[in-house]
């Protein structure tokens, strides 16, 4: 069935949800492909959780419709949908042991005894909880409880697994390990994963494709690399990773597709582009080189300034340089050897250099 393969597993068509007069989700349309690891990110209150709950069936859209696996979900209850959810609180049933928790959905679905036993065993093996069958949830750590919840959802073989801030309660080390494990797990089972998170780095490291949400609308949908390198707006650029932004005015030049941007307190910079009027010049901190002598070369942007602060993070340092703009310029330096970067200290006058092709012009 060639048509089936291109058909998205989830199709969100103009969905809105109002809380009072204010839209929590505002006319969102989104397609999620079969087998994708898709992330919905945004600050708290952006509507991502509401959207997820509408997919799970815990909330109903006020406008628009949702199709899962080609089936219209309007009027279909949460218990009748081919999606399963991993809850933020894990929601492991406290009065059932691990095995009973995982088997619950299959029992409700009236599967045969043999099938329940074999699928439960398989699911527990998948999340590395074999041998924990008879444990009660209160004997498990937070990470193990999450695995129980994961097995309980995966055992249902859903079309889509919805993950609601799954890693937010774990400590940093465990979170990183779980991120990797989730990615491997998703590849193994081949089920579409849809994760909701406020942590942009989590989304970048796990997902194949990311939708950034803000105030109920989707601002950009892109692959992680594309999203980071080519954000389409000030909001996305700011939300995903760190970025330096400078306000400026763009003017045309005699050359086609070449503009001159006059940036606040920095000066004129020539760039490829067609934008006119008020623009924002943006550049990621790791694209900036710091040196004591300016590098005069075609295609480089040089800005001089005084180091006002250095934030040390071990592997790298964040250097804040006063270049005369409203915000200090932020540059990353890698602490590649034991001595860090010699000769850089607060108070130094330095030259910040980046390739003009590495900077972005944002108009919205």
């Amino acid at each position: 069935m060639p048509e089936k393969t291109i058909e998205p597993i989830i199709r969100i068509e103009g969905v809105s949800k109002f809380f009072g007069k204010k839209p929590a989700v505002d006319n969102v349309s989104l397609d999620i492909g079969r087998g994708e690891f898709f992330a919905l990110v945004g600050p708290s209150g952006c509507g991502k959780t509401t959207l997820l709950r509408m997919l799970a069936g815990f909330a109903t859209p006020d406008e628009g419709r949702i199709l899962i696996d080609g089936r219209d979900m309007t009027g279909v209850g949460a218990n009748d949908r081919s999606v399963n959810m991993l809850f933020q609180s894990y929601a492991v049933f406290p009065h059932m042991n691990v095995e009973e928790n995982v088997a619950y959905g299959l029992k409700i679905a009236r599967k045969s005894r043999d099938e329940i036993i074999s699928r439960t065993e398989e699911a527990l093996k998948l999340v590395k909880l074999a041998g924990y069958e008879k444990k009660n949830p209160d004997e498990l750590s937070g990470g193990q409880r999450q695995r129980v919840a994961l097995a309980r959802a995966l055992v249902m073989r859903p079309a889509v697994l919805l993950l609601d801030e799954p890693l937010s309660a774990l400590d940093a080390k465990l979170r990183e390990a779980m991120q990797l494990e989730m990615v491997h797990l998703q590849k193994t089972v081949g089920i579409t994963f849809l994760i909701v998170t406020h942590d942009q780095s989590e989304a970048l490291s796990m997902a194949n494709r990311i939708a950034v949400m803000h105030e109920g609308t989707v601002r950009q949908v892109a692959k992680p690399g594309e999203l980071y390198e080519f954000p389409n707006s000030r909001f996305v650029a700011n939300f995903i990773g760190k970025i330096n932004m400078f306000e400026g005015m763009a003017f045309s030049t005699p050359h086609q597709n070449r503009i001159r941007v006059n940036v606040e307190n920095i000066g004129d910079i020539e760039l490829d582009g067609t934008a006119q009027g008020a623009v924002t010049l943006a550049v990621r901190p790791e694209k900036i080189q710091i040196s004591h002598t300016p590098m005069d070369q075609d295609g480089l942007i040089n800005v001089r300034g005084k180091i006002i602060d250095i934030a040390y993070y071990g592997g790298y340092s964040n250097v804040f340089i006063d270049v005369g703009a409203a915000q200090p310029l932020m540059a990353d330096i890698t602490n590649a050897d034991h001595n860090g970067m010699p000769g850089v200290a607060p108070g130094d006058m330095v030259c910040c250099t980046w390739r003009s092709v590495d900077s972005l012009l944002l108009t919205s």
Partner: protein
Amino acid sequence: MFRRKPLGPLDYHRRFPLQFILIFTLIFIYLPIITLVAFSFNDSKRNIVWHGFTLKYYKKAFANAELMLAFGNSLSIALVSALVSVILGAMTAYLLWRFKFRGHSAFEGAMAMPIVIPEICMGVAMMAFIARVGWPQDLPWPLNLGAITIAHIAFCFPFAAIVIRARLESFNRQLAEAASDLGANEFQMFRDIVVPHMKPGIVAGALLAFTLSLDDFVITFFTSGPNSITFPVKIYSMVRFSVTPEVNAASTILIFLTVVLTAIALRIQNRHQMLEV
């Protein structure tokens, strides 16, 4: 060398005036009860001087047919009231917890009315109600207890409802969502997830209703007829003639029963709290 441990901020019981108050409070609360129990074993017709240990008043109490009938009545009423109260209470609590509807808080307030209304008013109201509907007086046992049982359910079920409602407050709603996400319908979710969580509340509510019904005097006094005497009412009528150790013995049995049931209720509740995740 002996050194006193320094006082912690909450070590009130180790500060002198508070210690004093504590001891006196305990004496005031428990001395009358201890005296009552002790004198039930007193080998004397009067309850004033200790004459020696005996169990004969217990024998006498158990041999007292009227007293035993009253005791049986009380147990039957308490059992039925507790059962009905806890079912009604659980349903009310679940309704209030699960659904939002117009007049939600008004309904909740109205439900709790029997708790705040003075018992004497409840008693009079119940008596008037029973008389107004013309409840038959001369029914055979146990139907003659119907009026009292109805009155008891009316004032016991709000207690059960409040206990169960409090228990439901600690329920993680994501558990219910998880169940329906896994395919459970509303009833399966209620049966498999919510009821197990409510269980300690149900047990506590039932035992609370049972003990409340068992030792209720005021409301029962107004609703009982000559053929439907309960244990507290019977003791009251015995005391009107004279306070004999037989009354003490009967009261001791009641105290014992109440304490045991309360202890069971607390135990069940604690065990469930330890299982919480």
